């Protein structure tokens, strides 16, 4: 299965992926959609760029790793997190916003959504209009890639 990976040596720390992620998960596809969706708003992307690792030199983006043994799924009290064809998927209709998954995700990649009533997480843009990870598609330096990899 393809997943999103970041090559941290190439990440510029531009945070553009966060805007594309937020736009895609608000139903947007195009740059015009992005302006309409995000102008003047605090964004709640499902990918997060961390800046300043290794003494300030390194930046990298993190989003759901779609674990083989997903702690979030195993600890969900509502059955709202499931694995669908390898993709760790969230059902906001069943979620009650208890944040047990926030407490258990080793990567910090399941997070409260903007309202805080439920959580949100990366679903590889497979369920929004973009259809494939917008972060990878729009990464200007190809630091974020969508590909199949094995265990390191």
């Amino acid at each position, binding site marked *: 299965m393809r997943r999103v990976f970041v090559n941290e040596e190439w990440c510029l720390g531009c945070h553009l992926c966060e805007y594309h992620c937020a736009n895609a998960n608000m139903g947007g596809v195009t740059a015009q959609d992005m302006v309409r969706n995000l102008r003047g708003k605090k964004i709640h992307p499902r990918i997060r760029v*961390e800046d300043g690792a290794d003494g300030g030199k390194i930046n990298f983006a*993190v989003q759901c790793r779609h674990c083989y043994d997903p702690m979030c799924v195993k*600890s969900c*009290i509502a*059955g709202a997190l499931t694995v669908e064809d390898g993709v760790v998927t969230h059902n906001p209709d069943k979620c009650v916003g208890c944040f047990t998954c926030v407490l258990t995700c080793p990567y*910090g990649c399941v*997070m409260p959504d903007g309202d805080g009533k439920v959580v949100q997480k990366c679903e590889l843009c497979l369920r929004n209009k973009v259809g494939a990870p917008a972060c990878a598609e729009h990464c200007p330096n190809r630091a974020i890639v969508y590909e199949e990899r094995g265990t*390191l």
Partner: protein
Amino acid sequence: MAKKFVIIGNSAAAVGAVEGLRAVDKDWEIVIISDEPYHTYGRPLISYLLFGKTDEERIKFRPDEFYSANGVTAMLGCTVTQIDAAAKTVSWSKDDYTGSLQYDKLLVSTGSVPFVPPMNGLETVPLKTPFMKLDDAKFLQEHVKADTRVFIIGAGLIGLKCAEGISKLTKNITVCDLAPRILPSILEDELAKIMQNWIEQNGVKFMLGDTADKFDGNKAVMKSGAVVEFDVLVLAVGVRPNVALIKDAGGDVNKGIVTDQFCRTSLKDVYAAGDCTESFDITSEQAKILALLPNAYAQGYAAGRNAAGLEDKPYDSAMPMNAIGFWGKHILSAGSYIGEKHEVFGDDGSYRLICRDAGLLKGFILIGGNDIHDHSVLDRAGIYTNLIKDKTPLDTVDFESIKDRASLKGFAADARKKKLAGVER
């Protein structure tokens, strides 16, 4: 003939056991036998059900086809009355029917039972309920109307989630606890006070350091002499592991059912998992009752896999862990609060405690601020949880860079690479 795995119980540990066994085996026959008549549901969801955030359909812990898809025969509404470990049978009853089932392996995941201390005159109270099961929530739905006076005994997690749950049905809720503070099992004085103020602002009244001494119909006389009149009584003093079946069968029971690291009880071919067991807390290194859903699932999962004959999956990651929220203010906590403390009281009403001891992260408490839309304090808490669980030596992590905000950037480059540039198995 296929071997038979019988599971007593139908909640998180039982579902974990089905999924753990089916991950490695397709042939075993599985039977779930439960005294509740319902499809598996998330027990902690009953307060959200009352609050109107979910409903009876959506609280299902697994989809409708869960049993059929996993080859499970679900005997719902059947109460197991006895385990005969020598004959490898369980006896059950349902209404006027009784029967028995042969097993090759048995899992006891019988959960907790409410603990009700002796209180004079309790039998004279017409409307009273514990708050653990769907039927308890239905009872409250039926009997709590606007202006119904609800009196909750116990200001722990269960009592307070009940208070929140019914807060849209009535504005007349009083909670008492013999302890001088709320949430006595998870919070110290000052933090308990923060949460108490918050819950009071949402309309709940407290009587702390006091509890009911005797009842007379709809009236409670408190230890202090105060008198409380109520219409509905909720008994949420505490819970105890439901150990009766194992105890009666001669199995080892301490505070909870005693199991080894592979979830085996002292009875041959009998496993136990979930709230009915005693676990080994890896942070305090003590045996404890850790009646928490994620632990129950993980333990059940390991038990199911081991029962299939692999005996290769130790359950060795148990620790206290709580995600609890009231009216939008959340507490995330894990581990033990020992060693050196890093503590921050935020101007926004938030709180952060990070504890480390002997070079390891040992525990944390994060409490969200008063702006219920700002969750920045809680952000990425799982990174801390897993530092504790994995016993990651803190000399391999830049603690200064993560102590005020959880992140992965404090991890060494090779650890980061392993986490982010490949797939972890």
